[in-house]
């Protein structure tokens, strides 16, 4: 039976699965990535594709088996996928299984499942399945000052206890920004993705947000993010201002 160069990566939210995969891609060629469980909110896939332009991302469709022979493929399993009930093609039986786990935890289902345990970032492993809220924001452009306010409120508990939050947001000056937070991390990060500025109309590239936690006020989060979004007239005005500013050097 043919075997495939395939690695499955699992772990709790915020442990560093995507970060570990990102590290494996440095200097390599012919790599592919698939995120199982992200559905339409392809934050990790978009982040990796921006970081490693030559990466092949299978994010919205399942490739043919033959495609797996062409690439060293990493499949990231979202934390809410039940490892026990995960059924893979028999051809994948020999695949490499990596669990990225916070330091110090033992005897979990990930230990039983994985071939290799990688020590990742400190994060709390929830006893109960946490609440997961996602929203696709593609086409929306947010005012940067508003975004930083709502993000600060979000990660500091204004809308419920947040264990993990990440998002890709389009902002007024055309940049695409990646925001990343894990509870307990003293320095939540935000970085600009290496993508061209979008300064003509509404962006049709992906943006979206994912929040994991407890007692999340999903309605309030959604409404507050909506309040940060520019209408067509305001967006056109600011895009013109930024274009003129950039043209003037």
């Amino acid at each position: 039976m043919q075997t495939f160069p395939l690695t499955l990566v699992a772990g709790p939210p915020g442990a560093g699965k995507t970060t570990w995969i990102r590290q494996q891609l440095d200097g390599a060629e012919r790599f592919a990535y698939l995120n199982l469980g992200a559905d339409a909110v392809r934050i990790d896939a978009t982040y990796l594709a921006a970081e490693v332009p030559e990466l092949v991302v299978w994010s919205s469709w399942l490739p043919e088996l033959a495609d797996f022979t062409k690439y060293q493929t990493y499949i990231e399993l979202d934390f809410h996928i039940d490892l026990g009930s995960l059924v893979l093609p028999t051809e994948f039986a020999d695949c490499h299984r990596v669990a990225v786990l916070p330091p110090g935890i033992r005897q979990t289902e990930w230990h039983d499942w994985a071939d290799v345990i990688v020590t990742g970032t400190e994060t709390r492993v929830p006893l109960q399945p946490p609440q997961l809220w996602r929203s696709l924001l593609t086409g929306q452009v947010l005012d940067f000052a508003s975004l930083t306010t709502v993000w600060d409120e979000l990660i500091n508990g204004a809308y419920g206890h947040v264990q993990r939050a990440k998002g890709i947001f389009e902002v007024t000056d055309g940049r695409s920004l990646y925001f990343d937070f894990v509870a307990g991390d003293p320095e939540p990060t935000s970085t600009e993705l290496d993508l061209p500025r979008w300064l003509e109309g509404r962006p049709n590239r992906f943006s979206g947000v994912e929040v994991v936690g407890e007692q999340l006020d999903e309605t309030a989060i959604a409404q507050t993010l909506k309040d940060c979004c520019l209408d067509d007239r305001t967006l056109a005005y600011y895009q013109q201002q930024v274009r003129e500013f950039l043209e003037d050097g």
Partner: protein
Amino acid sequence: MKIAVISCIHGNYEALNEVLLDIDRHQVEQIYCLGDLVGYGPYPNAVVEMIRSLDIPTCQGCWDEDVVEGLNACECSYPSLLAEKRGRLAHEWTNQEIHPETRSFLAQLPLSLRDGNLCFVHGSPHSQHEYMLPDMHAFTAMERVLATGADTLFCGHTHIPYVRQLESGQLQVRVSSGQSSQRPNQQTSNFSAPLKRIVNAGSVGEPRHGRTNATYVLYDAETEQVTLREVEYDYQKTCAAIVEKGLPSIFAWRLARGLEFAERADDPTHVCER
């Protein structure tokens, strides 16, 4: 004579009550209020009634003006879309909540008050909407005080208390007649500005100094000593009332952390001319 100066109560009755009790303990002869009695907080009518019943001389704040005249702040006076939307929500709620007599009281408030060499305004002598921040350019700051003719200018609006001394101010003015570009006829005059002082009273009801405590100032006219007072109050009562009365619950969350309801403007000296 010892006076107390309070500002920016923003409908926070619990905070006002506690500050007045603290003032009582210091045996002041006069209290002045720098406005913004309403806006964001849950008890605009009770705050106005308290100020009115105690006959506290009060000047009009920007929120007081907006409730009387209609929302007049242009979008550029908000630092973000979110702050603007929250500001509008608070304005609409307050506008619905206040009684006619509250509105009438706010309408007749003067823009400034004088007491000897002391002047009292909400934002600056030029506008209730202008922020006089502690790092405002010294020339501009000096101009604001000189415009009043007073030696000490009490202001609020920024919600951050401070005392700023403007001493040994040297101003040089060069006037050119412009007869010839080769040899301009220039006259130079030098002025020495006397010691002036700006005192910001902070905020009773919406502190912006990173703690939940209300702030105000005590001033001793004999010794010219300024004391910034910080007063603990039961902010959780105000937070509960915010939610109970239908204001956005994010206001309560922010108040409980010593954060302003909406951040100050990017360009704090900007004054809307619309």
